[in-house]
C-alpha cells in the first residue's frame, strides 16, 4: 500500500483530485487571484505586440484591401437604405411583442478589459479584470459596445471573472430571426468548431436566408432580449430532419475583442 501511495504517478493523481476538491470549496480563489494579477500586464503587452505585428505584416495587403473597401462602400450605401426599412420593421416587432429592447436602465454596465485567454486551443473563454467586488456574479451577461452579445460569467473571484463566450460549444442562447415576411423564427444558438456559430431547431418550412440578423429572444431569462448575435451565413436544411440548421457569422470579432461590458444588477 505504501509503495503504491509513494509511486509518483499515483501520488500526482491523488494531489490533483485533492486540488479539485479544494477548488470546489473556493479555497483556491486567492491563489487564482494572484496568478491572474500576474497575467494581466503581460496580456496588454501581447495585445499591443499582436496589433503592431499584424499591421506590419498587412502593409502589402492594404492597397488591395483599399480597392475592395471602395467597392464594398458602394454596396453598403445601398444596404443602408434597405436597413432603414428593416429598422422600422424591428420597431414594429418590438411594439408587438411588448419589448422595448435592451436598455439596461435598472442594471449597471461595468466596463472590463480582457486580460487573459483560454489556455486550450478551444479559446472560447477569456478572463476579465472585474470580479465580485465590482458587483459581478455567476451568470452575469457580457456584451460589447453596440449591444452585441459576448457571453456570460461562469466563474468569478474577488477581482477577476472568467467569461464563456457564445462561440463555446457548451454555450446555448435562445435566439430570434426576423424574417422578411414579418414573422419571427425562434432557434437555439450554440458554438461551432472554430469561431463560428450554429443556429439549430429552426422549424422546417420557415424561410431562412443568408444575411438575416439574429438577436437574443430573452427566453429562459439567461440573456436579455434584443442583443445582436450575428448574421446567417449558410443554411443547412434537409427534408429528413425535423428542423433546419444554419451557420452564423458572429457580430463580434472575438479575436480582436479587448473591452466588454458586464451587466450587473
Amino acid at each position: 500500500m505504501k509503495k503504491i501511495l509513494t509511486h509518483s504517478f499515483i501520488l500526482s493523481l491523488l494531489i490533483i483530485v485533492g486540488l479539485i476538491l479544494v477548488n470546489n470549496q473556493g479555497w483556491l480563489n486567492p491563489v487564482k487571484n494572484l496568478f491572474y494579477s500576474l497575467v494581466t500586464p503581460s496580456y496588454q503587452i501581447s495585445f499591443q505586440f499582436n496589433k503592431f505585428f499584424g499591421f506590419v505584416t498587412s502593409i502589402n495587403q492594404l492597397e488591395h484591401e483599399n480597392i475592395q473597401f471602395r467597392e464594398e462602400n458602394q454596396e453598403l450605401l445601398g444596404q443602408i437604405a434597405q436597413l432603414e426599412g428593416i429598422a422600422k420593421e424591428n420597431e414594429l416587432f418590438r411594439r408587438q411583442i411588448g419589448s422595448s429592447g435592451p436598455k439596461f436602465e435598472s442594471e449597471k454596465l461595468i466596463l472590463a478589459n480582457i486580460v487573459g485567454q483560454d489556455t486550450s486551443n478551444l479559446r472560447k473563454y477569456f478572463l476579465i479584470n472585474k470580479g465580485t467586488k465590482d458587483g459581478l456574479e455567476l451568470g452575469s451577461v457580457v456584451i460589447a459596445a453596440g449591444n452585441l452579445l459576448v457571453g456570460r460569467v461562469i466563474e468569478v473571484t474577488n477581482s477577476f471573472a472568467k467569461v464563456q463566450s457564445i462561440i463555446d460549444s457548451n454555450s446555448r442562447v435562445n435566439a430570434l430571426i426576423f424574417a422578411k415576411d414579418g414573422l419571427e423564427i425562434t432557434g437555439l444558438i450554440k458554438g461551432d468548431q472554430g469561431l463560428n456559430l450554429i443556429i439549430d431547431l429552426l422549424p422546417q418550412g420557415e424561410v431562412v436566408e443568408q444575411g438575416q440578423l439574429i438577436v437574443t429572444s430573452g427566453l429562459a431569462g439567461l440573456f436579455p432580449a434584443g442583443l445582436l448575435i450575428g448574421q446567417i451565413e449558410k443554411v443547412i436544411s434537409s427534408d429528413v430532419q425535423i428542423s433546419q440548421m444554419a451557420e452564423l457569422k458572429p457580430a463580434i470579432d472575438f479575436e480582436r475583442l479587448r473591452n466588454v461590458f458586464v451587466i450587473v444588477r
Partner: protein
Amino acid sequence: MKTTLLILGLLFAVILQATLVPFITLWGVSPNLILVLILILVILKKFEKVWWLIILSGLFLDSLAGLPFGLVSLSLISTAYLIDRFNQSIFSRIKFWVLTILVILGSLVYNILLFGLGIVFQAEVVFSLRYLLIEIVCNLIITLIFYAGFKKIFR
C-alpha cells in the same frame, strides 16, 4: 538553482500561453507551449523528477482554461507519464526522430485524454482532427526551437 529556474520558466511559459501564444496561430490554431515544455522535460529528466512541476503547470493552466478544474492537469500528468513509460521502454537514446515521434504521440494522447475526460467531467470538448493535425505541426516547430536550449541546461 535549476529548480527555481524551472519554476520561474514554467510560470512564464503559462503566462505566455494565456497571453501571447493565442495571437501566434497557424490556420487559427496555436501551439501548446506548456505541453511541449512538459514533454521535453519528461524526455530529458524522467517523470519521477518533474511530476510536481507538471502538477504546478496544470494548476495554472486549469485556472485559465475554460474547462472543469482538474481536467487539464489530469490530461497533462497522464500524457507525461505515458510518454515517459513509452520512451524508457522503447528508446535507448534521444535522437531527432525519437523526439519527433514522442511529441506527435504526446500531442495525440493529450488531446484524446482531454476529449475523453471531458465526457467524464460532462464538459463538451470539441475534437477536430484538422485542428489536432495543425496543433501537432505547431508543437513540432516549438519543440525544435526549445529542445536544443533545454538539452544544454538539463543534460
